[in-house]
């Protein structure tokens, strides 16, 4: 069975490095890559009545924008390198959603980048990479 890599991708430079790393590994062992973009979302957040009314329309827009701006260009780029690639756009808590995809897809590895700032906000709220160290269901590589 060939390896399946779940990569968290948000369009940032570190995310691109993580993706390149996963694509290189998959290229060597004939594995595949699942690129996941998670839009931070909590079903327990508060919205105004107007935002409620427009939510479905906004969501459709957000999905289209993520697909066109982030996923589509990357899909063609990776396919060109001969590695089989699949993309997913999800809503939810970033780390938890990535883990869920890894479980559903029976991934062998997860790969994410880290921004490496370790500033106050990540001390208080934690970072995606930090959370994944704690909760990842499969081996997880963190690319600096």
């Amino acid at each position: 069975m060939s390896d399946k890599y779940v990569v968290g991708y948000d369009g940032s430079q570190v995310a691109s490095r993580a993706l390149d790393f996963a694509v290189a590994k998959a290229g060597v062992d004939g594995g595949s890559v699942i690129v996941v973009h998670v839009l931070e979302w909590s079903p327990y957040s508060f919205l105004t009545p107007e935002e409620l009314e427009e939510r479905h329309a906004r969501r459709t827009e957000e999905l289209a924008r993520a697909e066109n701006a982030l996923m589509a260009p990357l899909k063609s780029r990776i396919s060109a390198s001969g590695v089989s690639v699949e993309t997913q756009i999800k809503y939810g808590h970033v780390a938890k959603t990535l883990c869920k995809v890894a479980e559903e897809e029976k991934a062998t590895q997860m790969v994410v980048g880290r921004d490496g700032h370790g500033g106050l906000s990540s001390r208080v709220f934690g970072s995606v990479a930090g959370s994944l160290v704690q909760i990842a269901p499969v081996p997880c590589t963190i690319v600096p």
Partner: protein
Amino acid sequence: MTRLFPTAVLTAFFTFFAAMSASAQSIDETINGVFASSTGWFVSLIFSNFPGTSFPWIVGWLVVAASVFTVYFGVIQFRAFGHAISLVKGDYSDPNDAGEVSHFQALATALSGTVGLGNIAGVAVAVGIGGPGATFWMILAGLLGMASKFTECTLGVKYRNEYADGTVSGGPMYYLTKGFGERGVGGGRILAVLFSIFCILGALGGGNMFQANQAHAQLTNVFGQYPGWITGVIFAGIVFAVIVGGLKSIARVTEKVVPIMGLIYVGTALIILLVNYDKIGWAFGQIFQGAFTGLGVAGGFVGALIQGFKRAAFSNEAGVGSAAIAHSAVRTKEPITEGFVSLLEPLIDTVVICTMTALVIIITGQLVSDPETGNYLLNEAGTAIKTVGDTSGVALTSAAFSSSIGGFKYILALAVILFAFSTMISWSYYGLKAWTYLFGEGKNKELTFKIIFCVFVVIGAAASLGPVIDFSDAAIFAMAVVNIIGLYVLMPIVKRELNSYMTRLKSGEIKKFQ
């Protein structure tokens, strides 16, 4: 000329304001007088009594409806309670729908429209006039109201409009027209138009003027007396910035702060109750005794009952139809699920929060009673119970909380202002929906309503509590007149939805996702 112009404007501006502040008190009085005389007839129509009694027919109308729905749906408020909690937790939400409006969000937004001054000021009015016994009737009305809310919110989702651009619009206007059509009953369109007119008045009254009025009362309580129109202009400016200027950031901040304020409010009330735990038994004694005897309040136990029912309806808006507008944006394939979720609204609003306020007012001994008979003493005018500091409305609640926790009046003032503001934002939306239903959508039409709305903020802050509260109640209850006729006609449709859903839930066709 061009250089002269700004100076001239500035001079005029300052002269105007100097004149304004000199005659500020008289401006308030004029607004008050004009307002009271122009709305009086409407108020007396809505609040006229059943012939030969002193019982307003509108209160009977609401309670009978809530009782009918309670019986017709087999005490749905208790049967579906557990399921409602699982729905809010998201147990039945499809993970693939993440990013859409959740049950929790629809409930939270609807709640921030209803939790507000009704819970703080309205309860104080009820207890101040009707005595502790009013609390009993308020709780009962809250529990019964859960069934009305269930009915209207299910219909709100079922008959909402979904537009091509993905936005949704729902509310009584839509179920009155579409639902009546489906049942082959005429008159739906007329009722929808009537509802929209009353909804606009309600938005301007209870959803706006009452809020501005009580926010001003709080501010004067903290900063000392000053003319109401000043608060009005400031509030109107902020509301204008949000609803016309699209300054969503302000709205978003309040939407986040309001739930926290709600928790602080309930938490503080709980602390006061815990500190006075030895009096809780006594307070409930007063509530039960007062509910059936009145304990000397004006109008006896009927007075307590009327006040309790009135303020409960004003606070949780069950049967009024406003919640159907707020709840209709949820993402669900089953309209009935939003009905279940909306059951929780009167429970949280009335049975929990309102009761807290009432208990604090009673326990801290704000109401003056005769030590010999145990009956409450009336104030000089004979219209309400005599209170320690001669306070009423939100000032009474403030006095009650402050007597236990000194600086609480500042926190309460902030809470009142934020609640008032979030309620105004919610009602500006309800009013706008009714307005566009009547006049059609379009930038200028919407702007007209929004400007009218802002003008009423100023009027509400300047007028005195009596006429404002009367008109607010009358307009909101007028919505209930129309809405409940619709609910009676459409309740078999809700029943069908309910039976079908319950069967599928039992058979396991509807499953938990998590």
